[in-house]
């Protein structure tokens, strides 16, 4: 059944329930289907998603600024992982990066500073539909230019940047939300977004022969076309029904992306925990002792040795870590326990950040943990909390 055909049936929101082809059985089926679909079309975890957006992009922004003095050695023209080496690996594994498109230093500097700009804009929530996709492009481009310097933290950031592009991360706590609110109040129509969409389309056409393989080109074009459909549905009044459908589908996509993000975080903890259980050093409680005596992970050796000298503490913290990582996915079901668990996890990550000198990895995991915070905590109820949902 094509969309045109459905559209021809008229605007269904005003359509009586007694359509000629809707029998009594159909009506019952409809009743049963309407509820789960209404649930699926309702945007879930909008505040968590906004927090995730702010955390992730803020983290990338901080990382890029911190590595600014080392940028050329890590990702640029002075890297031991020379551009031709990177290009040969990319040709083999089809990773996505725009940095192999030109060997010029100007191109690298453009991409690096563009990434800083995009991360800042996404954090503020400016035009998130576009900036979240550009953020994904920027993060993957840098990471795949030199995949040999990324640790677990970079891995988390890269994967989550992909998922974030599929969410409606600018629905609250963003410049976008404020603009939408004002436009609605003043009865204005936003035109700048449409212009930006056109510019991005031309840019995408311009670079479209630079992609390794077709998958990423297809993903980026799909983003662009969907947004175009949405504009088209707004533009023509006949599209009222398709507009509603598009909005509902976009919300469903957001919900699915949030589901995938949550499951991915559980998978991270479960993997880390269940594999630790198999290690003899974690079994005998001495795992943490080794971690605290690695030269590459001891910015404060005195502090590490002090901690490592307490047998009881090392064993308890070691077992505690493994138990929490293993239990994490299962404890999320208990609402009251959940917040306490998350608080402990965040404290532990703060400890890892300092003791093992892994601030970005730890911060990435804190941002992930925050996805599970309850809405009531994130959104203190103003005026008895009865503001209608938009």
């Amino acid at each position, binding site marked *: 059944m094509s969309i045109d055909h459905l559209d021809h049936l008229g605007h269904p929101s005003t359509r009586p329930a007694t359509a000629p082809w809707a029998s009594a059985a159909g009506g019952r089926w409809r009743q049963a289907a309407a509820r789960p679909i209404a649930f699926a079309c309702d945007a879930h975890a909008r505040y968590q998603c906004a927090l995730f957006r702010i955390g992730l992009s803020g983290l990338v922004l901080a990382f890029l600024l911190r590595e600014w003095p080392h940028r050329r050695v890590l990702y640029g023209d002075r890297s031991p992982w*020379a551009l031709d080496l990177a290009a040969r690996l990319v040709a*083999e594994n089809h990773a996505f990066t725009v940095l192999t498109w030109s060997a010029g230093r100007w191109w690298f500097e453009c991409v690096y500073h563009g990434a800083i700009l995009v991360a800042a804009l996404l954090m503020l929530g400016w035009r998130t539909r576009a900036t979240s996709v550009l953020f994904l492009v920027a993060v993957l481009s840098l990471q795949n230019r030199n995949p040999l*310097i990324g640790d*677990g933290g970079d891995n988390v950031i890269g994967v989550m940047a992909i998922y974030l592009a599929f969410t409606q991360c600018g629905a609250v706590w963003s410049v976008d939300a404020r603009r939408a609110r004002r436009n609605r109040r003043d009865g204005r129509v936003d035109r700048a977004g449409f212009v930006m969409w056109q510019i991005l389309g031309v840019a995408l056409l311009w670079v479209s022969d630079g992609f390794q393989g077709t998958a990423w080109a297809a993903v980026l074009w799909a983003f662009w076309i969907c947004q175009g459909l949405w504009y088209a549905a707004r533009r023509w009044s006949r599209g009222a029904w398709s507009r509603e459908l598009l909005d509902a589908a976009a919300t469903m996509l957001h919900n699915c992306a949030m589901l995938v993000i949550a499951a991915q975080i559980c998978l991270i903890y479960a993997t880390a925990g269940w594999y630790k259980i198999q290690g003899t050093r974690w079994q005998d409680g*001495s795992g943490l002792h080794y971690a605290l005596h690695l030269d590459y992970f001891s910015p404060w050796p005195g502090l590490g040795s002090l901690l490592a000298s307490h047998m009881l503490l090392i064993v308890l913290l070691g077992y505690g870590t493994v138990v929490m990582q293993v239990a994490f996915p299962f404890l999320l079901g208990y609402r009251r326990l959940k917040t306490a668990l998350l608080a402990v996890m965040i404290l532990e990550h703060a400890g890892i950040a300092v003791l093992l000198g892994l601030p970005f990895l730890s911060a990435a995991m804190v941002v992930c943990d925050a996805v599970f915070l309850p809405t009531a905590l994130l959104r203190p109820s103003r005026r008895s909390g009865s503001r209608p949902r938009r």
Partner: protein
Amino acid sequence: MADTGGTGPGRSLPSLVVLAVTAAVLLGAACWHLATLFLAVTPDNPVRSRYAHLINGHVYPEFTQGWQLFAPEPLHENVVVEARVRTDRNSEKPRAGHWVNLTTQDVAAIRHNPVPSHAHQNMLRLAWDFYQNSHSRRNAPIGVRGILFGEYVKRIALQRIEGRRGGLDGERVVAVQVRVTARPVAPPRWSDRASSASVQSARHRTLPWWSVKDQDRRGL
């Protein structure tokens, strides 16, 4: 933006059909994605080996699942990478320089630094990991990656040594050599391992000399 949620009963049948199909497609895609991720992190099993091509094609490289942080065993060796160069002065007999400890430079940069850079914490450390995993014990590269990762280690050593202030006195580097020492972290006093016989001497590995051409210095 119009309210699209909470008006379920008002939706027409065609709307419901379209939305149900959309929901099924999206949920199916999400489940398929998560299933491949799950299979990418499981230990080897028949399902995984039968569909390895499908799973790897989807998961790598963008969804790489490297979550076995410090597992199953925590890192328990301090690996030290050293390098030296052979220089050529006015067609005299080339001579080998002193070993330069590259890891110490990294550790010094990390010490008392609340925000260590990837350039110090990860670059050399992971480069050696990648080299080890892509070379045989006799230093023969395995596949294209072996060749690439070998060149990477060589260029890191070259960059570090040639980049030292006044280190080479204008002499030209013609070859570079790398050696690696892995020192196990001593087990805690209260552990059974401390008394067991398998404690653990340092492992050494010296790589062959690699000749250096101008091409190897590109960009450094």
